[in-house]
């Protein structure tokens, strides 16, 4: 453990670099999920693993990795052998064996001692378990494939395996869910003592079964209800010792997800796998969201082929504000101003002043952060930030 800490301290002297691996396999599709995923077959898994190795070789690794995150899909659907195979690729990357944090998302049904052993062996430090709810009825309604018993068994196994940090993912504002039921879910999660809890307000994403239900009027949105659930959650988790550090994320001291924090602070990360996004070397973009096409691109030596954007200092400053304001710690505006003096700070200042005046934000020294009320309106705030940047760009 002490070895790990020393390594962390060393890596932190340089700019962080994250690695995201998208494992696109799922046994079935949850009603709320819009991520790219396919049904696993021996051939597709082998193709995927080969592809990750090839893609990793194509990346210009200019400094050691600081964090890794395997998401999906369901990385836990890979066999222990395949997990090791994927682990080898990661460990082969500079810094890949001396990471601060290595997270793997697991679905309760796929948590076996063998898989957990494989993950520990390759160096995974953090497990994120997709619980969503402890209420059987609501799990059914979401199309999830696990039971409450499976959740408990999975959690116990993860804890016994000795990972440094464990997260539970929960969802709220589910169709038909009452405020009491949600409070009970939070209580249940807290009672298990995870290090980190993520609570996601159900979002209606296009191309999901839920979206279809919403557009057919079978499910109704109620922002007031959602706002109350948000507020109740923040209070409940805060009282239980889980400090909120982002709109949907809570952790015991020292357990905030570094990988995600780095992303929100507009540091760099490399994404491997179909649909994975990258932000590196002055460019942001994503891989194609199709296993075969992704492989085809790789064979031609191409990656990050979709939605490519050149990262100018102004764009980074804009996004650092938009995404940083979602963090409870807020954004150090002075720092970004120094990094990017040409950005439209006049318009931004006017906006920030207004946010503070209206009780949506607080300002201390160089840092601006949203109040609870402001955080509930982070999208509107983000759109205002964009407008401020656009406004000045036109004026200039």
């Amino acid at each position, binding site marked *: 453990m002490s070895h790990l800490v020393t390594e962390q301290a060393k890596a932190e002297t340089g700019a962080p670099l*994250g690695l*995201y691996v*998208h494992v696109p396999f799922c046994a079935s599709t949850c009603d709320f999920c819009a*991520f790219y995923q396919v049904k696993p077959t021996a051939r597709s898994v082998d193709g995927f693993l080969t592809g990750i190795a090839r893609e990793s070789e194509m990346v210009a690794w200019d400094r050691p990795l600081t964090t890794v995150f395997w*998401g999906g899909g369901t990385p836990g659907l890979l066999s222990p052998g395949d997990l090791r195979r994927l682990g080898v690729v990661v460990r082969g990357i500079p810094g890949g064996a001396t990471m601060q944090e290595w997270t793997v998302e697991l679905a309760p049904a796929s948590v076996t001692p063998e898989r957990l052993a494989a993950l520990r062996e390759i160096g995974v430090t953090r497990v994120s378990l997709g619980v969503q709810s402890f209420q059987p009825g609501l799990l059914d309604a979401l199309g999830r494939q696990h039971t409450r018993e499976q959740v408990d068994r999975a959690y116990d196994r993860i804890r016994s395996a000795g990972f440094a940090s464990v997260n539970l993912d929960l969802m709220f504002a589910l169709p038909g869910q009452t405020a009491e039921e949600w409070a009970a879910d939070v209580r249940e999660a807290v009672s298990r003592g995870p290090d980190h809890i993520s609570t*996601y*307000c*159900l*979002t209606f994403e296009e191309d999901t079964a839920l979206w279809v239900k919403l557009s057919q009027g079978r499910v109704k949105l109620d*922002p*007031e209800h*959602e*706002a109350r659930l*948000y507020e109740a959650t923040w209070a409940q988790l805060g009282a239980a010792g889980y400090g909120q550090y982002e*709109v*949907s994320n809570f952790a015991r001291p020292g357990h905030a997800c570094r990988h*995600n924090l780095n*992303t*929100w602070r507009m540091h760099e*990360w490399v*994404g491997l796998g179909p*649909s*994975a*996004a990258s*932000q590196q070397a002055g460019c*942001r*973009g*994503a891989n194609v969201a199709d296993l075969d096409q992704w492989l085809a691109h790789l064979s031609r030596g191409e990656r990050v082929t979709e*939605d490519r*954007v050149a990262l100018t200092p102004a764009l980074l400053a804009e*996004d650092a504000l*938009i*995404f940083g304001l*979602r963090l409870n710690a807020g954004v150090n505006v002075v720092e970004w101003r120094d990094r990017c003096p040409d950005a439209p700070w006049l318009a931004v200042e006017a906006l920030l002043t*207004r946010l503070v005046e*209206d009780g*949506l934000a607080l300002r201390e020294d160089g840092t601006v952060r949203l109040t609870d009320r402001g*955080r*509930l*309106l*982070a*999208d*509107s*705030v*983000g*759109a*205002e930030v*964009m*407008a401020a940047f*656009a406004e000045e760009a036109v004026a200039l």
Partner: protein
Amino acid sequence: MPAKNTRNFCIIAHVDHGKTTLSDRLLEHTHTIEQRVMTDQHLDSMDLEKERGITIKSHPVTMTYRAKNGQDYKLNLMDTPGHVDFSYEVSRSLAACEGAVLLIDAAQGVEAQTVANAHLAFAQKLKVIPVINKIDLPSANLELCTRQLEDILSIPAEEAILASGKSGIGIEDILEAVVARVPSPRWTDYPQTRCLVFDSLYDSYRGCIAYVRVFSGTIKAHDMMMLMSNGQKAEVKEVGVFMPKMTKIGSLGAGDVGYIVSSIKNTADVKTGDTITLAARPATDMLPGYKEVRPLVFCGLYPLESDDYEKLKAALGRLRLNDAAFVYASESSLALGFGFRCGFLGLLHMEIIQERIRREHGVDIISTYPSVIYHVIKQGGEEMDVDNPVNMPDPGTILEIKEPTIHASIILPNDSMGDILSLIMEKRGVCEHTDTLDMNRVMLRCVLPLNEILVDFNDRLKSITHGYGSMDYELGDYLTSDLVKMDIMINGDPVDAFACIVHREKAEAKGRQLCEKLAEIIPPQMFKVAIQAAIGGKIIARDNVREMRKDVTAKCYGGDISRKRKLLDKQKEGKKKMKLIGKVSIPPDAFIKVLQNN
């Protein structure tokens, strides 16, 4: 046919008393038009007219009738506009006649418009032939009708003809009465040609077509004519009569009703009430009664979709061609964008123009609150007319404001009396007379400020009286009143579209109502937004727009950043389409909803 065998007459009636059906029967009976080509309400050609059972444009028609005395007569029937907004037009149509058939619905009896129209006819010294129509209705009450004729209109009951346009009863009696009772054309021996313009029509090929009644002399193609109001001369291209379609003939002579096509293109140049004479031998005196028509009621008209501005402009231009009484000028509003300030003869005229823009020209529009013309006398004696509240000068500079009033005649069932009196009081009216019409009805004569009847007076009258009440009015004097301009402000910035001129005592209630409505209709906002009503800087009512509660996206990780940016960008673009007032982005339809709701 000699002028002594010509009869010029019109039919006047309250709405729905069967004027158009009766006109149709007369046309059939005289074989002016055959039954098989007769659509119901032949004379009312505009869809709107048919729907509302009112006449907006004049539709004259010439009939030939062999009377029982064996002689042939030329009967010119003028179908007059039937609404107080067009009272000047009505008076010109009546001036073109020597007689009027006054229709009374046997079941309804005399109504407010019956009285008003009868008085107009008397004023023009027309021979009035009373006809009680719809006598075959089970609810017909002949005894009541004849008594009302005598009591209210002072017309001898024995003159009344009993008829039913629907069943064709009494049609011949009416035609015989027109021949026997209506005098032959007057003023035929005036030495020069004089024709009264009683309407005009714009034709895209032929320009302005003047509808005329020839009083003396003749007029024919290639004559050089002159408009006596302004001396404008033009060559006559064609003359003709209405059969009922326009039919070209060699010349129009004394007593004739017909049309003149000239080299004048613009209908605004050929004003209703003007006298046409011949340039070579001009008359020295105009026919009596000409006046310039000025709009009384104003409002802003704006396209719902700003892209429709040009379409609206074209529509207004077309409507203006056919309707010289309608005026417009471009204006712009912070809240509503680019549009037009429009002037109308009255409320119905305003409603009809708006409806025609929507239907015939396919432009969706929103109108601001109607306004009247206020006479403002400023400190130091300077006077000005204000037809748009936005132009009202600073209250500190105003000595007094005068507003137009009307003299209204309201006929209502006895049991609605209390409620109607309250309504009149609420509208700042004063009742001057109460006349009992019969067992069940009374007629109130009252003075009301014109601006108080602009919006919902008639609707409320109808609703209180369950449809039995009716109203007619004529313009009264300008009277000094304690009027103020009220501004509605969003975060301190006035919203021009809601500025209005109200009586001081009603300002607070109206201000509160508007603030509430806006607060309710403007979607929840991220920032705090105050809505205030103010008079000259003093806040008299306020409300707050609801605060937005939650719009945060739950999941936002590396892969979501691009998507999220797109989402926010969409949101930002959406805001651009909104009206920015007092730093508040407001969807344009929010204002529209408030205006529509009031």
